[in-house]
């Protein structure tokens, strides 16, 4: 992954978030407070703008800049969580100009660790972690087959992970306030994480 591909990833993520904002908001309205789509759109628009204003030179700095923009523009739970995740992922790539599939995998591992350090959510708590954790595992398992294949596997796992949050009872975030009533709804953060991995799969297949 070079800097262009990483920029394309962020751009595609922003596009997908924009296209799916209403769905993300509706998911959040059901078990949260109805702002996740709007938040993510605002955050990723700010990230894309920041990336456009001072284009970074390495994939790592793309992710760090994205993380910084998300922290300072998103708000809510998702802002600090995604923001920290992106920054950690970016830092894991150090100043590599061309990250291998294995290095991208390590960055995703760092992203997950950052989100879990901050949010303290375990798998099964019905959060974005339930999409990201299986995605990271799938990515690592397929990393030997190249970036596109690994990304495709990760996207599939993330999408499945998001859907698999439906029967779960939330133990973190706003949805946890609903107790058993959180069961039967897809977690909005898991849904946006699935978009993040889908974006990666799309840009890597195209390239």
């Amino acid at each position, binding site marked *: 992954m070079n800097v262009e591909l990483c920029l394309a990833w962020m751009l595609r993520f922003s596009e997908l978030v924009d296209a799916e904002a209403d769905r993300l*908001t*509706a998911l959040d*309205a*059901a*078990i*949260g*407070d*109805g*702002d996740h789509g*709007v*938040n993510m759109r*605002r955050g990723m628009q700010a990230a894309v703008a920041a990336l456009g204003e001072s284009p970074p030179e390495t994939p790592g700095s793309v992710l760090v800049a994205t993380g910084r923009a998300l*922290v*300072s*523009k*998103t*708000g*809510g*739970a*998702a*802002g*600090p*969580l995604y923001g920290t995740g992106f920054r950690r992922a970016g830092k894991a790539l150090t100043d590599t100009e061309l990250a291998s599939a294995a290095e991208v995998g390590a960055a995703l591992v760092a992203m997950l660790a950052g989100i879990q350090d*901050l*949010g303290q959510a375990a798998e099964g708590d019905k959060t974005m972690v339930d999409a990201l954790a299986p995605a990271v595992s799938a990515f690592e398992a397929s990393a030997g087959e190249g970036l596109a294949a690994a990304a495709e596997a990760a996207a599939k796992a993330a999408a499945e992970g998001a859907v698999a949050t439906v029967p779960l*009872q939330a*133990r*973190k*975030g*706003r949805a*946890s*306030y*609903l*107790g058993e*009533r959180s069961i039967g709804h897809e977690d909005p953060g898991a849904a946006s994480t699935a978009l993040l991995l889908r974006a990666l799969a799309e840009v890597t297949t195209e390239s």
Partner: protein
Amino acid sequence: MKKLINAPENVVAEALRGMAAAHPDLAVDHENRVVSRAGGPTQGKVGVVSGGGSGHEPLHGGFVGYGMLDAAAPGEIFTSPVPDQILAATTAANGAAGVLHLVKNYTGDVLNFRMAAELAEDEDIEVATVVINDDVAVEDSTYTAGRRGVGATVFAEKVAGAAAESGTDLAGVARVAAEVNDRTRSFGVALTPCIVPTAGQPGFELGEDEVELGIGIHGEPGRRRGKLAPARELVAHAMDAVHADMPLSGSVVVMLNGMGATPLVELYVAYAEVASWLEGHGVTVARNLVGNYITSLDMAGFSVTVGRFTDELLQLWDAPVQTPALRWGR
């Protein structure tokens, strides 16, 4: 969706313009989205800052002023503010005696305030944080994000603000705020859902004869759905829930709060029931508030907040306050 607004995405910015126009005692930093006292921070006084998503007006901006908050950081509707913004509020409140962050216990608020506190410390501003979590509808266990911060926030802002005004140091101001939180519990009931402007539709649907019991302040459904019942029963449900969690006795401070669309005449009807529930349980009311203090956009409903104040806390409660939404003694 019928709202007195111009465009859903501009509600917070425009409401801040309105606040600035309405209240010459407030300074509104539109770029950073910070509401602070027009006079700036008081040197040598502990700064008291709160913030969180908008949609709960008058909380928090309406509580900025003498004897209460120094600055507030209003996020987008129901979305916690961002760290830079909270840092700007912290700076606006900084009188070189440290700044207290009063944070409602929501993941987003807690995380963004934590990041802001780190930024503030980089700038040599000492920050103490008290997290408010008074909502008995949520069990405080490893199976939840912990109890939500609701009505106790108003009490904590008042008491901490009074302590800071009287010259108490940061640790002391944090202590009384934490004490208020420890001694206060709340429970809320919705008669209707609310509509987040950018969402355009309600978060849940309620039948003509249904209510949501154990709601927070973000338009989320409550712990369970119930039947619409006389005010007496809804109030008893709320009071019983508070009492089960923190047995009430002696003398209390109580707030009967409207969720935004419930008219005052109904709040008084409900408060009559609160007063008689308390009387029936041998509890006396030291002080009370009846009105819209911590709302949830255009939701109809109420929450009740009860604080078992010590004499010290009650004295701080009685101290003069001069803010748009709470004013006495000057």
